[in-house]
């Protein structure tokens, strides 16, 4: 066990260095991009306030963006502020970006977590079914379904759901994470869940195909292996083999893949949140882009990169837990 934790710490350290380098690069690139854009963050901010902008306010925001300084210094100044937790103030919402992200992230997280679990669960089970019935009817049908779903754009699927379940059948609300007009504190967990169902289902439908096909392939490899042949020779039935050898060998790789797919998950949640007017990071970033809210756009970009990197890190750590061979090599 000591070797294992040592191994984990090493992987953690190596990954952390890489993640820091990637995040720095993301921050540089997005800062350069935004600086090159025709939208001036200072003017955009002041524009929203109308004439009611005091000289102090103006000076404050100009110093945040480091107007009149050389680009490198501007970037470093901004990075310093960001590292201190100051992501600037959103031009649309008139509040610190860090607060907005902190608030909306929980909404997004709830949505993504539900979809992640749902997609992982459905995908894994379907993958197992496909693998067990390889090249037989259930497998062929499910494979078609998976391919079909991967060509259907998520937002259109969301639109169809809205049309059928909300407009036609009236089972679900048309949007928002809570009933309109009810103060946030009074919203019960059930109401939240109720508003979460459709977006979460939409989001999970767009991502389960990947995990299902991956699981199918892995299970097929396992069933073709020598150790399954031996298990058969010992009289183990199909389902015993799945339980004793299949799950053991495919569960953690599937979980690893799930962690590595945070980028698609986040990207999908942007679409789902916009279709269902769900107040998460995704709808915030679209708003920010459309209405020229530079600090919010930068903030969410950085945050999404951090989120994806965290997922990749977990995936890398899991690789080690999966395979005793890798674990041993670390000793």
């Amino acid at each position, binding site marked *: 066990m000591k070797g294992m934790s040592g191994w984990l710490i090493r992987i953690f350290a190596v990954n952390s260095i890489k993640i820091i380098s990637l995040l720095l690069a993301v921050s540089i690139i997005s800062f350069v991009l935004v600086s090159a854009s025709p939208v001036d963050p200072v003017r955009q901010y002041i524009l929203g306030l109308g004439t009611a902008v005091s000289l102090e306010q103006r000076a404050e925001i100009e110093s945040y963006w480091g107007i009149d300084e050389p680009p490198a210094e501007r970037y470093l100044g901004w990075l310093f502020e960001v590292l201190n937790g100051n992501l600037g103030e959103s031009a649309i919402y008139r509040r610190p970006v860090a607060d907005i992200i902190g608030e909306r992230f929980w909404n997004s997280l709830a949505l993504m977590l539900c979809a992640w679990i749902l997609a992982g669960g459905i995908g894994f089970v379907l993958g197992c079914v496909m693998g067990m019935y390889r090249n037989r009817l259930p497998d062929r049908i499910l494979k078609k379904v998976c391919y079909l779903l991967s060509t259907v754009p998520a937002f259109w699927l969301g639109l169809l759901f809205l049309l059928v379940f909300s407009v036609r059948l009236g089972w679900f609300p048309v949007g928002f994470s809570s009933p309109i007009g009810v103060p946030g504190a009074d919203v019960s967990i059930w109401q939240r869940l109720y508003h979460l169902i459709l977006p979460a289902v939409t989001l999970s439908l767009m991502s389960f195909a990947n995990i299902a096909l991956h699981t199918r392939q892995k299970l097929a490899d396992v069933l073709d292996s*020598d150790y399954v042949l*031996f*298990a*058969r*020779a*010992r009289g183990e039935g199909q389902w*015993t083999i799945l339980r004793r*050898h299949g799950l053991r060998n495919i569960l953690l790789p599937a979980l690893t893949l799930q962690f590595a797919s945070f980028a698609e998950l986040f990207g999908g949640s942007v679409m789902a949140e916009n279709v269902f007017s769900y107040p998460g990071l995704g709808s915030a970033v679209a708003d920010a882009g459309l209405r020229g809210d530079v600090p919010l756009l930068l903030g969410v970009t950085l945050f999404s990169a951090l989120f994806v990197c965290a997922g990749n890190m977990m995936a890398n750590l899991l690789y080690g837990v999966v*395979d005793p*061979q890798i674990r041993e090599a670390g000793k």
Partner: protein
Amino acid sequence: MEQKKETLLEIHNLSVSFRMYDHGLEQTNLRVISDLHLTVRPGEIVAVAGSSGSGKSLLASAILGILPSNAVVCGHLHYKGRELTGQLQKELCGKEIALVPQSVAFLDPLMKVGAQADGHYRPKLTEKRRKLFERFHLPGHTEDLYPFQLSGGMARRVLVSAALVTDAELIIADEPTPGMSLDQALEALRMFREMADEGKAVILITHDIDLAFEFADTVAVFYAGTTVETAPASDFKKGPAALRHPYSRALWEALPQNGFRPIPGFQPYAGSLPKGCLFAPRCPYKTEKCGNQIPPVREVRGGEVRCYRAK
């Protein structure tokens, strides 16, 4: 030899072929085992010896009923006098008939070997398996190791324990010796000898013929998917004169200690088997008859042989 004991497993005219698709949708049948005869009695080690590519491992799969789905099996298998059908195979495999596979690759890489040797049986056989591990001098912590942590010899003993944990009466050992040192190989074979002496029947599939006839009671010489000769192991010790089939003699003469004289030619591939005797193309004594008709199995001097010339 003493009076014939009751047979445990009798294989009669067994053929195995594979349906293959080549050139688009053309279907061909690839015959890998043809008209095989084999009789196994309790307390006996039957060595199935032959060079690689002669379909020996498939024989094990056919007995256990774990051939790939595109395999077609004809002929008769009788176990304790009962026809060994797919249903019966399902009932017996892993209980009365056990396989000792070739290598550590037949163990699940992510499962501790103790749990694997225990098998899926209910009630759990852990206590019995621990005793077996002890008997084979496996240290106590072995059960918590993963397959890749085992040495070759340890892996072999784990695999044998896995076969013995169920009190199987018929043990099929598929190439148990390759990759082992001579000492390890001897030790492994001694284990099988012990099992046979306890009254179990052992089918030892191997290409190490000289080791095989040291430990086996009967040796079945396998060539191109069939047994050309089945003889008491003692005949192989006596030398070529005691043997019945030209291929058996050629095998004997090809052994390093007997002059290392290989015979010319190659074993025919499953796709292009000759019409008559499978050995005819390489046989120095072949006649016209050998080229046209497969010789039937005959009893000659206490052994069975497929050759028109054998006396």
